[in-house]
């Protein structure tokens, strides 16, 4: 099984390296091959919003940069990890910039899913999502918004499973909650693949 960590730490922002290493360790213990992309080090332009990836070069973004490679890696993974500082309940610029470029992975055509209209699948399988949000001090309202956002993403990206955790990054950072979240989603994916 493959897992892809999209590390959305910001330039001059909180370092998420320690958390990333903990996630990797736990994923490896759960039989995942892990790759991490530190997004701020990659050339990924902002989405232009023209939908050319649907109607001109179907399935491929017209911008030829690392966004394409990220999309290719993501769709061929069983699990994607969104690692990000929580910004107003949403994702960091670095993570969101990459996610905005993932829409070539879905189809433009509409489909009803649980009473709402969404875009159809382009591929038969999509990765499950584990989102790990980090805050210097926990804000309950923003934590709830973050979890709601991850759930919405799991619908639009056709993910079978999703988990979302928000952690406080302090000196006594406890990895237990994080490891439990990794373990829980790993087991679900493992059972599905059996």
């Amino acid at each position, binding site marked *: 099984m*493959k897992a*892809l960590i999209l590390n959305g730490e910001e330039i001059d922002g909180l370092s998420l390296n320690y958390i990333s290493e903990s996630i990797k360790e736990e994923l490896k213990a759960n039989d995942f*091959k892990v*790759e991490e992309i530190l997004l701020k080090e990659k050339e990924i332009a*902002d*989405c*232009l*919003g*023209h*939908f050319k990836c*649907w*109607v*001109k*070069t*179907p*399935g*491929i973004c017209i911008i030829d940069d690392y966004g394409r490679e990220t*999309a*290719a*890696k993501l*769709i*061929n*993974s069983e699990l994607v990890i969104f690692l990000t500082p929580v*910004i*107003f*309940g*949403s*994702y*960091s*610029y670095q993570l*969101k*910039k990459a*996610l*905005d470029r*993932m*829409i070539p*992975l879905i*189809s*433009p*055509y*509409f489909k009803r899913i649980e009473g*709402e*209209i*969404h875009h159809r699948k*382009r*591929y038969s399988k999509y990765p499950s999502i584990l989102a790990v949000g980090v805050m210097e001090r926990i804000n309950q*309202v*923003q934590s709830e*918004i973050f979890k*709601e*956002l991850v759930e*919405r*993403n799991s619908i*639009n990206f056709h993910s079978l499973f999703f988990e979302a955790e928000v952690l406080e990054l302090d000196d006594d950072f406890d990895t237990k909650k994080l490891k439990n979240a990794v373990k829980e989603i790993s087991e679900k994916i493992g059972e599905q693949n059996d």
Partner: protein
Amino acid sequence: MIKFKKAILLIGSPKSKNSSSASLGGHLLSKIEEYDIATETVQLPFEISTEAKRIQFLEKIEETDIIILAAPLYVDTLPAKVIKALSLIAENRKDLNLKNLDSDKRKSFSVIVNCGFPEADQNKTALKVCEQFAQAAGFKYLGGISIGMGEAVSGRSLLEMGRMANDLIKGLERAADDIVRNHRFSDSVIEKTSKAMISPRWLYTLIGNFSWRFQGFQNGVYRKMNDKPYLKVKHND
């Protein structure tokens, strides 16, 4: 008595033409202008592209009384560049001592989010994010307008859209009145602006699906619309 002097519209779309956000925000701003308020429109993705522009942009925000964001929904929340711009504003204002400032004396912030799905409710998470931003920046949050079927607008003037935009236009007019009076959006604003522009809903999705096919046909890729170019690409282990 009207006390505001200047309003700024922040367009969150990267598109320089056919932007629904520009149409919707532009209409709201034109109604605010009728109250003799000076207005300015900026397109966020270009406004913060260099350090010099960022400084100028932040100065503009500080010189403004009314701030309105009109943005598309990208992947269930605000587009990346909008998150960046809002972060810059909040960061720039974090040391201002606004705790004891009466909310009515703060700059006001309101938002329009539009999505291409028929259900306006799909913007709800993005609106919550905007409210959190307003709080972090010390703005008075007047509310969020949530619009579905945004593709039906696609850069057109709302006045040219005929009956389908009647409720939307009325709702935006009332929103302008609420903004100028520094009031939280009234229920009628939310009710009018969230109404479906095309009914029944299946008709919108039918037209939408046809439109994607037609664009694919025009670009000579009709038969490739369901291609899976990244299937079986291996990781660099």
